[in-house]
């Protein structure tokens, strides 16, 4: 051990031997060349490509987001327009309905009136015909009665009074029936 210390003086730590420099130079040059010419460019290319992809992806996402926003806007506008249209259609339908009801009502009223008028006309016509018929029948009745009264015995007071009453009843009944 002591001999070993003697054989390697301390200054050798700081003074390189020629062989040391030559080998180190060879190693360093080989390492630097391979690293800077081949390894780093490859790795950097991959790194750059990745960051490019990520950037592109982010940009695309932004674009898509914008499109989606736009789409949503137009959709909302369309929805509002559709709602408005629906409301106006409803309004119009209601108005139409009211108008139709009104029309139907007036039509029904005129029809009513017409039917009523026709009924009245018919009534009066029937009445005139009934009056005309009655007039003839009353004459016949009167003559019948007269003949009956004359033909019967006048002494029988009781019977004559009965005949007269019956006649009067008939007379009473006749106008009410025809009215």
């Amino acid at each position, binding site marked *: 051990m002591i001999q*070993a210390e003697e054989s*390697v003086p301390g200054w*050798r730590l700081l*003074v390189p031997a020629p*062989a040391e420099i030559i080998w180190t130079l060879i190693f360093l040059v*080989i390492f630097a060349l391979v690293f800077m010419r081949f390894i*780093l460019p490859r790795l950097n290319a991959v790194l750059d490509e990745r960051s490019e992809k990520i950037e592109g992806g982010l940009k695309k996402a932004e674009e898509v987001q914008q499109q989606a926003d736009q789409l949503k806007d137009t959709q909302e506008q369309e929805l509002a327009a559709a709602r408005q249209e629906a409301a106006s259609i409803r309004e119009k339908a209601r108005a139409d309905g009211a108008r139709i009801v009104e029309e139907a009502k007036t039509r029904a009223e005129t029809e009513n009136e017409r039917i009523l008028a026709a009924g009245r006309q018919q009534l009066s016509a029937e009445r005139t015909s009934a009056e005309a018929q009655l007039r003839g029948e009353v004459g016949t009745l009167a003559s019948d009665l007269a003949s009956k009264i004359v033909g019967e015995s006048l002494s029988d007071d009781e019977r004559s009074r009965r005949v007269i009453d019956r006649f009067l009843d008939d007379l009473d009944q006749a106008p009410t029936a025809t009215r």
Partner: protein
Amino acid sequence: MGRPCGAHDPGRQRDRDCTTIQADPQPGTAEPKRPRASGLAAPTPGTDARTPPRRPREIALNTSDATGSLLAEGDSFFHVPTIAEFFPDAILFEGTWFEFNRVQLVRLIILVVVLVGMSVIASRSKLVPGRIQSIVEILIEFVNTSIIANTLGLREGKRFAPMLVTMFFFIFAMNLGGVIPGLNLAGTSVIGMPLLLALWTFVTYLFFGIKKHGLGGYLKHETMPPGVPKPIYALLIPIELLQVVLIRWASLTIRLLANMVAGHIMMVVFIGMTQALLFSGSALIALAPFSGALAIGIYGFEIFVAALQAFIFTMLTAVYIQMATADEH
């Protein structure tokens, strides 16, 4: 010899970082002390030669454990690591300018593993990352945001990002060598690597500073901060000049080197001590768990230091570049 742990029986194995522990099996007995670096150990005491045989390569590679040598020698209870650990014997091309030793081997292994691993990750990288790719990307993003964006800014930083990211990964990987079992030595714990990295920083900020301001403009920009009374410049200009041309890169070198060297020595001391206590054969065994806990704590701390030093080195490089290329005050 130059070996910290002494030579060993080739058949035996020793621990990787020369944290060899020598415990006397019978503390009382007066076994004759043997010099540690004196060749073959216990099993063949007779071959205790003064001239050790050249150590086989596999031992120089340090793939072994310490139990063999534990009882081997009786001269010391605990081997204290020395800086000789950072200067191992050559494996190949000894004596030439291409001497290849264990430190270079560690660096080469780290280099190959990191480059191959990262190339596989990079070539398989997908838009939707897997787990490993995510970790790498987190590290790159960390350098990009907390180092580059904070100092140089995003626009200016783009020019220097490849260099700074490379620097961070390189230093981090080399530092981690110190905590990876089997490697056991940070690639940056020997002066050459921190020095060259610091010089890379130096050349870069000098080049881009002069390119932007011109030589005179750059020196004025760096050494003559505005708003200072004229006489003070006499003092300020030499200091700032020294700072630009020497202190910055020298401090970068020494900071990284010293951290890695100290970290390695600390780990060796505590792990070695734990084992020495555990096999001491006396009441000291009771202390081993505490020492072991401390060793594990320091191991974790070294992982943190590996990342921290990579961060600091890269951060300072970015700051120096920013100072050199900033617009006029």
